[in-house]
């Protein structure tokens, strides 16, 4: 049984179609990276899989069940790109991570010992246990991102979906959660992440899927970045030229990779 199956999905916002005829399969234990330029539709793809965006055409299955019938959302852990604008009402790291347990226990049961233990384990995994009672707003960007990962891990999911986890995050934090993700995968978890560039996550990735202008342009082993993308200080924030060749932008195909 695949973890995620997407068949000929098409997704549109306000009359504009963002994704056209996208198909994708994620097997248990896979670590799949969805890559692409800004505006290619890669974020839309995972948001559609997560049911945050309605599916226009096509089908999506989660753990073998059709998405609209799927109820076992505790098996899915979501790590959004950032914490969200603060409103002034404080929340501790512990409280944010604890909200990751709601999918497991439901809204009617109060928190129990198992929940507290899961929160502690998740925070230990991302090395933030010492900040459990601190307000989230006092953390750095990278520490906040680690909090969000801990929140997703607290629910003991089988699938982790991450949206650009390394964007704007310091190198130390990137190392820390690359390690956490590695442990998750070793324990049997499946990972689906959207990234602009891979950085310390590169060694984890089994498969890369490149989305370009709403379609899958390439799927296979992660390609080597070419040209100035390969430089260590490259932060990959620059416009891509509109005109493309063969639908694969700037990633130099090597002999090992079979273009799709």
């Amino acid at each position: 049984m695949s973890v995620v199956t997407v068949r000929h999905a098409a997704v549109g916002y306000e009359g504009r179609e963002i994704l056209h005829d996208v198909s994708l399969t994620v097997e248990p234990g896979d670590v799949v990276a969805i890559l692409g330029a800004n505006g290619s539709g890669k974020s839309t793809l995972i948001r559609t899989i997560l049911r945050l965006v309605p599916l226009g055409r096509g089908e999506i299955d989660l753990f073998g069940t059709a998405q609209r019938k799927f109820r076992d959302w505790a098996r899915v852990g979501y790590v959004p790109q950032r914490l969200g604008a603060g409103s002034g009402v404080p929340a501790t790291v512990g409280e944010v991570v604890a909200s990751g347990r709601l999918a497991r226990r439901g809204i009617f049961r109060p928190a129990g010992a198992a929940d507290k233990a899961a929160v502690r384990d998740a925070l230990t995994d991302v090395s933030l246990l010492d900040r459990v009672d601190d307000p989230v707003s006092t953390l750095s960007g990278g520490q906040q991102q680690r909090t969000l990962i801990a929140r997703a891990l607290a629910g003991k999911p089988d699938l982790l979906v991450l949206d650009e986890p390394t964007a704007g995050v310091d190198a130390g934090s990137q190392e820390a959660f690359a390690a956490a993700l590695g442990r998750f995968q070793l324990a049997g978890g499946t990972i689906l992440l959207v990234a602009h560039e891979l950085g310390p996550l590169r060694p984890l990735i089994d498969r890369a899927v490149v989305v370009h202008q709403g379609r899958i342009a390439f799927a296979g082993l992660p390609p080597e970045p070419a040209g100035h993308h390969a430089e260590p200080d490259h932060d990959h924030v620059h416009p891509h030229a509109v005109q493309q060749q063969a639908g694969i932008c700037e990633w130099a195909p090597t002999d090992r990779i079979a273009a799709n």
Partner: protein
Amino acid sequence: MDLFQYDFMMRALLGALIIGLAAPALGIYLVQRRLSLIGDGIGHVALTGVGVGLLLHQSPVLAAVVVAAIGAIGVELIRERGRTSGDLALALLFYGGIAGGVVLVSLSADASSNSLVQYLFGSLITTSPQDIAVIAVLGVAVLIAMLAFRPALFAISNDEEYAKVSGLPVRALNLLMAVTTAVTVTIAMRTVGLLLISALMVIPVAAAQQVTRGFRTTMAAAMGIGLCAAGAGVVVSAEADTPPGATTVILALAVFVALTVGAVGWRMVRRRSQPPRDVEPPDVVLQEAEVR
């Protein structure tokens, strides 16, 4: 002169205490979602409900609850779609609500805009035992709902998309919040009046978050501040012969100012005496420039 030997004062105190406890319990979620003024907006819509009630010779409070609930649900649906910007939708509600109330009342044969005054400013002293029973029941219901669903409501208010992916019944809970807002506004109508309702929902939260660090502690502190301000408001207004509703709001503001000033002072003192916290390793290594 001990005013609290009189039943009407005890009822006034009880009504104020219930509202003082329940309003911030709801308000904390509104502040977290940046909907601090929604209480005002729904209060103004409730005025149309009062107008309907007076026009049809039905209970104005009941009509207010119904109309306010419809208004609150409407606001929630608009917000969900993200079409109109939040503050524009609120403006439409505010002004439509008051105008609706005044026009309806003018159509009524035996009420004038003067009849609306007690709803705008509160009428705590003339609360009958039946009124108090209704306020108590509804207030307790609001408290139970806001406390029992706290983990889910926190999750939604903190990060709505994450809550959706967690499979939480986000829309149902948002509608619950809307109806709870309408109910709280209408019971608060008796104490501080529709013009000051948001104050009781929001000021205790604003005061609490000056000194607290987490959500649970903020909620508890806000409820405590609301309770004390409401109780003190009634007592002070009895002594000073001022209207209880407005006195309560002034006291809540005083607590806010005191806590803000106190928190600033405390932080200044602590900064001097504490070493800096662990910082992250620098991304760049600075080296002394060699002097030739």
